[in-house]
Structures are given as structure tokens and as C-alpha cells.
């Protein structure tokens, strides 16, 4: 009931506003926008495929190995680095004239252009797949299923392909859907790596239309492109749902008590994983730190040129109250949405609509969604933090929903039945039985919403009012000055809450499993 109300309030109302305005604006797609749609589709599809492979492999290697907590945090770190930073770092590290080009003469061909966009997007989307699959591994692919496969004489590879991966299907598909939506919505990466190559995407097109011109026609085009985005993502999500539904199978009865196989997990896999994480996360983070510590852009990052001035400049003015507000907002949104996700998981019937519904608003670009929310709730909530919170809830619902749904699909029906038969009502069952078993998944969902929340720029900078400035407002102020050293310092500071949250979640996860 509450969920339905939430769905109406957070998704249906804004979407209806969006559609109504689009119809009114009556813009048409021209050749340029058509190219942008094609470009977005191309890179997002490719990035999703890469992210699904990397995220799934990463989850299998991490979770089945010793001491997974460290790798777990490392894998989530790309999410705490702003995408545009990764893009810039990738170009500087691996582009022509970049670090590896200078040192060993190797440059990734096409790094500036679609290839680079796909790679960096994939790095940013892989943690989504990873988190969902890792959570699902804990509940769905129980060790005894693999033991049974091995005892049947099947090689570990065959067991992986025929038993483990199919069981993880819903999580893989759900993660893929999220990865696709995130990629379609990504602006920072194509802005850095697409523009120099003249590669158009929907998001860069929307940004340009809004930033350069205030004409009704341009705004109509923004709305139309937003609707196109929603449409594309919805088609992808519905398709994913169908695949996932086919793959979903209830894990029957009998609590497992077959001991774990002692097969040592592939050491080579872990090696690869560390290299991957070093290249994709370590290098950008180091580059970011180096820039932030350097007195002026273009100077060599030697100790002689080091300074902390950039940090104090980045954190000047009303940064603290803004940061407090942002953290609180992100944490609140993450908590509310985790509860929504859990509630959907224990609902009497798991509904078909929840996946696409939540994905719909996730697909709307921040600027358009903020406009829609303002249209819908502005008259009552204008300039309040509540309005920003509504926008966050609408935008990030899919992250929490997906994370939990992937594991909930396998929640043992009997575990819930047993609680009900023991006299526990819905609420107690949720709190004592469902919540703990879904804790890894809920924690993953919470972390995702929180990370996206603190890095969200567009919506909160568009919806704030006097006294409700968030970190986004501050960040954009700093960015507009265009000094990359200060911007980097701020980005470094902004990774801190994300890292802390990731470490906390990884530890909880370990205790729960």
C-alpha cells in the first residue's frame, strides 16, 4: 500500500508531468538528436556487456576467495571517484601523449572516442553488477549446489557455467539493467572523452541545449530526449525482467549443511583482479591526488610543487553545512529506499511492475527529472530539502530496489512461512527474518544510493532554495571557476564519505554472512 503510494508519488506523477510537457512542447527529433540517440545506445550497450562480465567475474573471484572484505571495498571504489575524473585520468594515463605512451609507447587506440567512453563507463558500471551478484551469491548459489555438481563429475568450469551462473541469473540481469541505465545517463564521461572526438550522446546534447540556449524549442528537445531515454531504458529493463524471471527459481527447502568444498579459488583470478583494480581505480585516484596536491595545473607533481592550499580553497565558504546537509540527505534517501526495497521483497506477491517502474525515473536525466519534480511538487515544497529528497528518492529508487530484488527472488519462501506459523506478523517477520537474510543485499543497495546521492549534482543544484544548499551547489561553484587543481582537491575530499561507507558496509556484510 505504502509502496503503491510511493510509486505514484515518486514515479507516476513526475513522469506524467514530463510527458505532458513534452507533448505540449511538441519538439521533433532532428538528425542531430538522432545521432545522439544512436551514440548513446552504442556505447551504453557495449559498456553494459563489459560491465556484466567484469562485475560477475569480480564477484565470483572475490566472494569465493579468502578475506573478501578488502577486495570488496576496492571493487566499489570506482563509484566514489566522479566519472569525469576517471575519464580525465584515463585519457592522461592511457591516451596518446599520456603516461603509458610517454613511458613505453603504448596508447589505447580510440581512447578519446567511443572506445574510451565504453571502457570508462564499464569501469563505473561494473561495481553495480558486482554488488548485486555478490549479494546474490550469498543467498542463491549455495556451496552445496556446487558440491553436487562436482560430485557429478563435472569440471569446475562446467559447474560455473551450468549451475552457478544460471543461479545468479536474476542478479546478473538486474545488475546489467542498472549498468545500462547508468551508462545511458552518464554525462561526465562522454563530456570528457566524446567531445574531442565529436562523438554525440543524448546527455551531452541535453546539457548543451540547456546551457547554451533558453529557447522553448531547445527545452522541448531536452524533454523529448529525456522521454527517449526513459523509453530506451524501459525497453531494456522489461527485456531484462523477462530474462530474469525465466532464470529465477525458488531455492527449495532444506537449509544447507553440506560443508564447503575446499577447492582453492584461482590465485590467477585474484591477481588479474588486483591488476584491473589498480589500472581502473588506482591510477585515476593517484592522478587525482597528484593534481590536488600540485600548486598549479601543468607543474610537475614533485614535492617541491606540493601544497595543501587547494584543499583549503576547495573547502572554503559554506562547505561544512552543505556537506552535512548532503550526507544527511543521501543517508536518508538510502535508508528510505532500502526500506522500500525490503518492503517490496516481503510483499505478499512480488510484483511484475516494480522493476520497470523504479527504472523509469532512474532513466530520466537529472535536469529533466528535477523539472518534473518541481512542476509536480513545487507549489507546496518549493525551496525545501524535502523537494530534493523527493527527487533523490525518485531517481535512485531503482538502485535499492534492484539490489534487494536480486536476492529476494531467492528468499526461501519457507523461511517466511516458518516465521508466520510461529506467530510472527508481517512486521516482525520482516525485521527478524527477512531483513537479516537480505542484509547483504540491503547494505549494497544502501551503499549505492548513498554514493550516488553524495555525488549527485544536477538535481540538488536546481532544486535548492535559501538555506538548503547542498554539497552539489558548492561543488558546482568550485567547478565553475575552472581550476582543475581545486576541483581535484574537492573530488578527493568527496571520496572520503564514500570510502568510509564502503568499508563499513563491507565489514557488516562479512559479519552477516
Amino acid at each position, binding site marked *: 500500500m505504502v509502496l503503491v503510494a510511493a510509486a505514484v508519488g515518486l514515479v507516476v506523477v513526475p513522469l506524467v508531468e514530463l510527458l505532458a510537457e513534452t507533448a505540449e512542447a511538441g519538439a521533433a527529433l532532428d538528425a542531430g538528436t538522432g545521432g545522439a540517440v544512436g551514440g548513446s545506445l552504442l556505447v551504453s550497450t557495449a559498456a553494459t556487456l563489459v560491465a556484466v562480465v567484469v562485475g560477475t567475474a569480480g564477484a565470483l573471484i572475490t566472494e569465493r576467495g579468502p578475506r573478501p572484505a578488502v577486495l570488496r571495498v576496492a571493487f566499489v571504489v570506482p563509484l566514489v571517484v566522479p566519472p569525469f575524473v576517471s575519464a580525465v585520468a584515463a585519457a592522461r594515463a592511457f591516451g596518446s601523449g599520456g603516461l603509458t605512451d610517454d613511458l613505453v609507447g603504448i596508447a589505447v587506440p580510440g581512447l578519446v572516442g567511443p572506445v574510451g567512453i565504453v571502457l570508462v563507463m564499464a569501469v563505473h558500471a561494473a561495481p553495480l553488477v558486482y554488488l548485486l551478484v555478490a549479494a546474490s551469491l550469498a543467498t542463491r548459489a549455495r556451496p552445496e549446489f556446487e558440491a553436487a555438481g562436482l560430485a557429478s563429475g563435472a569440471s569446475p568450469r562446467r559447474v560455473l557455467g551450468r549451475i552457478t551462473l544460471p543461479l545468479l541469473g536474476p542478479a546478473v540481469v538486474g545488475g546489467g539493467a542498472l549498468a545500462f541505465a547508468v551508462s545511458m545517463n552518464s554525462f561526465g564521461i562522454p563530456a570528457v572523452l566524446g567531445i574531442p572526438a565529436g562523438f554525440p550522446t543524448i546527455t551531452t546534447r541535453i546539457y548543451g541545449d540547456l546551457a547554451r540556449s533558453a529557447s522553448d524549442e531547445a527545452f522541448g528537445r531536452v524533454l523529448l530526449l529525456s522521454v527517449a531515454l526513459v523509453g530506451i531504458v524501459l525497453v531494456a529493463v522489461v527485456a531484462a525482467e523477462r530474462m530474469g524471471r525465466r532464470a529465477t527459481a525458488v531455492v527449495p527447502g532444506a537449509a*544447507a*549443511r553440506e560443508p564447503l568444498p575446499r577447492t582453492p579459488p584461482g590465485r590467477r583470478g585474484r591477481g588479474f583482479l588486483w591488476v584491473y583494480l589498480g589500472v581502473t581505480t588506482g591510477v585515476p585516484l593517484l592522478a587525482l591526488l597528484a593534481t590536488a596536491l600540485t600548486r598549479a595545473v601543468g607543474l610537475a607533481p614533485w614535492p617541491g610543487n606540493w601544497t595543501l592550499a587547494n584543499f583549503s580553497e576547495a573547502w572554503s565558504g559554506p562547505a561544512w553545512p552543505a556537506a552535512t546537509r548532503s550526507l544527511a540527505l543521501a543517508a536518508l534517501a538510502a535508508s528510505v529506499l532500502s526500506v522500500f526495497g525490503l518492503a517490496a521483497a516481503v510483499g505478499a506477491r512480488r510484483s511484475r511492475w516494480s522493476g520497470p517502474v523504479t527504472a523509469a525515473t532512474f532513466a530520466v536525466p537529472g535536469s529533466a527529472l528535477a523539472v518534473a519534480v518541481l512542476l509536480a511538487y513545487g507549489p507546496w515544497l518549493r525551496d525545501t530539502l524535502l523537494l530534493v529528497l523527493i527527487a533523490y528518492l525518485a531517481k535512485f529508487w531503482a538502485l535499492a530496489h534492484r539490489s534487494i530484488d536480486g536476492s529476494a527472488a531467492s528468499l526461501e519462501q519457507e*523461511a517466511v*512461512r516458518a516465521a*508466520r506459523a510461529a*506467530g510472527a*506478523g508481517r512486521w516482525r517477520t520482516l525485521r527478524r527474518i527477512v531483513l537479516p537474510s537480505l542484509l547483504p543485499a540491503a547494505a549494497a543497495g544502501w551503499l549505492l544510493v548513498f554514493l550516488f546521492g553524495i555525488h549527485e549534482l544536477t538535481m540538488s543544484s536546481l532544486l535548492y532554495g535559501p538555506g538548503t544548499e547542498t554539497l552539489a551547489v558548492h561543488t558546482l561553484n568550485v567547478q565553475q571557476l575552472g581550476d582543475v587543481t581545486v576541483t581535484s582537491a574537492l573530488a578527493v575530499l568527496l571520496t572520503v564519505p564514500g570510502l568510509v561507507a564502503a568499508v563499513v558496509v563491507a565489514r557488516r556484510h562479512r559479519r*552477516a554472512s
Partner: protein
Amino acid sequence: MTPAVSLAGVEVRLGGATVLDGVDLAVGHGEVVCLLGPSGSGKTTLLSAVAGFVGVETGTIDVAGVRVSGGGRYVPPERRNVGFVFQSYALWPHLGALDTVAFPLEAAGTPRAEARRRAATILERLGIGDLGDRRPAELSGGQQQRVGLARALASEPDVFLLDEPTAHLDPAARAAAEELVAAHRAASGAAALVATHDAAEALGLADRVALLRDGRIVQVGSPTDVYDRPVDAWAAALTGPVSVLTVDMRDGAIVLGDAVLPVRGAGDGRSRVALRPEWAALGGPARGRVVSLRFRGPHTDVVLDTPAGRVLLRVREAAIPAPGDVVGWRPERVWPLGTAGPLPE
């Protein structure tokens, strides 16, 4: 007095198939009714319907005189006050044994400390008092089953719904479990509906036994009723070891080859009869060739090939023949099978 549980015309469909089909059954207060049926006959489904885990298509279920399913009503499981033991235990992976057993008590409002104390007592009585901290993954199958049983006991239900509650228990643990359920029933007057495929268990435990076949109840009666007077060959085989012979009877005697043997229960004419192993003995005028022997501890099962069909006898250690021997035997009692239902495979 209203029965503790009563089902009337209950039909349940799962995945498109009719799994229960017009089930009528009543369990009186304090009564133990065993559902005896082969694998797949619908025992679990019937218990699930009573607990409210599955809805009924048609028919009604009342618990303690209150309509809980059917006729447009549906009372959720937590308000039916039943204690369920799941065939597959359904333990919660994240909870230790003590917390698991304390759960229903806490749900009923017992303070945590008190709930855990009482849970500890129950675990103790089931012989797993020292495993209170263990999660299911750290328990053996039988230990898990006992935790499941303890949880049902802790909820102090009006009706126990026990789904093969002792399948993984050794005789000693089983005896302890049965005793505990009996004690609770004696104290509270709770009824019990027990699903099992083990005829010996059902006959020993039940006040009445209901035979379930493909979702229909084919016979309900006291243990001796269903054992001594099965409605057909299928029911006879389900309730215990039996031989089904086709014999000619004449004036209360059975004609076996040359011998005409007066036998309790015999009627007139050619008919199929049920012969329990203890209703016959080695030594006698009838002839048979020993086909197989199986040592069972207290007795040895001997199968004879006779003109009337295969005959199963139970022999004590003293005089066991060898396979291939031709031996004499005699029936002492038979039960004519009126309707000729098929034998279960």
C-alpha cells in the same frame, strides 16, 4: 464440541494440477491423526493448507471452530495458532538454535530472557541443549530437525502440524521427540496432524490414521482398523507388509492345492485376500519355495513362491530356511479385499 481442525471438501491446486481433491477430515481436541500416504500424495500440501501457506480452491478449513480458509475468508498463518514442523526444517540461516526456538515465544510477547530460558529447556529435552549457539549450517540434519521441532513446541500451539517430523531422527531422539509432543498435548489438549510415510510410526502414534492417495482420502480409522481391515489392496500395502493372494474359499476355509485350511476371515468363492506376515507361519500343509530372505534384526523376512502368489512371512531366528528350500506354511487369518484397487508399485 467443535473439532480442533476440520476440513470439508478441500481442493488445492498447485502449478495447474489438482493436488488435493475433496478432502474431508476432522481432528478432535487432543487427538493425534496421522496422514499416511506415499511420496507425492499431498501430505505436505494438506498441512500447508491448514497452516494457511496455500489457499484452497474450494472447500473450507476451520481451526478451533473458526473459519480460516474458504468461503471468502483467509486468516493469515500467524493468527491460526499452529505449530508447524517443516519437512525441510525451514530454519533461519542467520539465527542460532536458541534464538530460533525463542522466536515464537518472543512473537507471543514473552520477554527475551524468559523466552531464551524456556527455549533452552526445550532444546535440552530434545538432547541438543549444548548446541544453542549453532546456526543451521553448523548442525547435522537430525540436529536441525530437532531445532525445527523445538520451535513448533515453543509456540504452544492449539494444533501441531508435523510434516515427517522424525525422518532424520534415530530411534532414541525420535522417542524423546514423541514424548515431548505427547507431554505438551497432555498438558494443553492440543491436537496433532502428523504427516508420515512410515506405517509403523503412524500406527504406533495415531489415535486415527487417514490414508491419502493422489490427493484423496481413501480410508480413515483407528490403527487396528486400517491395519486389519484395509479398504483395498493399495491401502493394505500402505499400512504395512502384506501379501495379496488370489484364493478359492469355501465355508470359512481356504483351498490351497490339496489342503483345505480353515482360516479366520475366509468367506466363499474365488477372491483376492490380504495376508499380513504375522497372519501366517512356517510349518503346515501348504507348500512354498523360499525366494528371498532379509535379515531385519528382530525377525527375518522370508518370501515364498506359492501357487496363490508370493507370500511374505516373518520368521524368528530359530528356524530360518535357505533360499530354494521348499517349505510348509499355513495361513491363520486373511482379509478379503472387496474392491480390487491396484497395488502401489
